[in-house]
């Protein structure tokens, strides 16, 4: 059961990123506790894109990749161990980039988007679980 934690976390993160991507595409306000202004400002800010690509889209792509790697790692098929290491590396990238985005929110924009925080927490959890799995000897 525990081996399916990674795909479950990736699905959760994909839900968050998909919602933010959809709102970016449709232009609708982002529903946040205490009003949507802060979430809208964060997601509309110039910091919310990488070379013109919205961060929400990158997040969705990242979680899709983490989902695929997580499923492969949990399947026990040949290549599962490699997939797990790749998932760990990708989630480490995600955690570091989330840390940068959180820094921008707190110290530059001075606005916090709860969806972004949720994504950062999920990414950190994925990274923590994958780190544990990578460091744990697996049965042959």
């Amino acid at each position, binding site marked *: 059961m525990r081996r399916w934690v990674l795909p479950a976390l990736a699905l959760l993160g994909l839900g968050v990123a998909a919602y933010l991507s959809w709102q970016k595409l449709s232009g609708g306000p982002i529903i946040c506790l205490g009003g949507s202004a802060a979430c809208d400002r964060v997601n509309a800010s110039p910091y919310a894109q990488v070379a013109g690509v919205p961060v929400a889209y990158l997040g969705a792509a990242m979680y899709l990749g983490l989902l695929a790697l997580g499923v492969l790692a949990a399947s026990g098929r040949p290549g599962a*161990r490699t997939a797990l290491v790749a998932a760990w590396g990708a989630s480490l990238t995600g955690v*570091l980039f989330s840390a*940068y985005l959180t820094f921008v929110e707190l110290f530059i924009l001075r606005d916090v988007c709860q969806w972004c925080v949720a994504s950062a927490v999920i990414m950190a959890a994925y990274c923590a679980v994958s780190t544990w799995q990578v460091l744990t*000897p697996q049965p042959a």
Partner: protein
Amino acid sequence: MAKKKGLPKPPGGKGAPPRSAVSAPVLIAVGVTAVLVVALLIWFAWPGRAPGAVPLPRGAGQSAGPENAPVHVEEFSDFQCPYCRDAALGPVHRLLTELVPTGQVRFTFRHKILFGAESQRMAEAATCAGAQNRFWDYHDRLFREWRGENTGYFTAQRLQGFAQDLGLDQAAFQACLEEGQARAAVLADNEDSQKRGVRGTPTFFINGKMVQGLQSYDQLTRLISEAAGGAR
């Protein structure tokens, strides 16, 4: 670098001997790669730092370029007009970042209110940003946020948020917007547009000659060259 001795026991490790945990060199290589990828992402994510990014002009008001430039381009535009958006983020952006810095062209943005109160509010907000020398950054931001016509998206709160993102003086911007300090200037532009026969947007005047509708960058530069020839 984890020592095997201190590692957790394998889950359900019966039967065949357990595979060892991933070797330290592999973990270090993957970790270093992750750090490098993030550094690259941050480089591209930092506003204005992406390769090739040229900053928009800064200065008081809605004009850019020297007053004695041989060619003066005026554009009447509405922040909610889709063709104005195409012009602003395409050919006009290129004019501002490529031609205006040469000193050959002066470019002026003029307000033409086509879509009512929301357009008026956006125009006033941009003029308020211009009072803090950031008209063009705010202009681009408004057009990047384009959502259609009169969707109610551009609330006073959101306009204030854009000003905050640009690092404008929040109190001065808010006072400018709430007290309608920019209203007279916007209405004067709009009135002027009517006097000069502007019926749609975008409408350009190149050394006073009217050019209606969206123009490509090549079309604009050709018209500018013709006007420069005539100015000599």
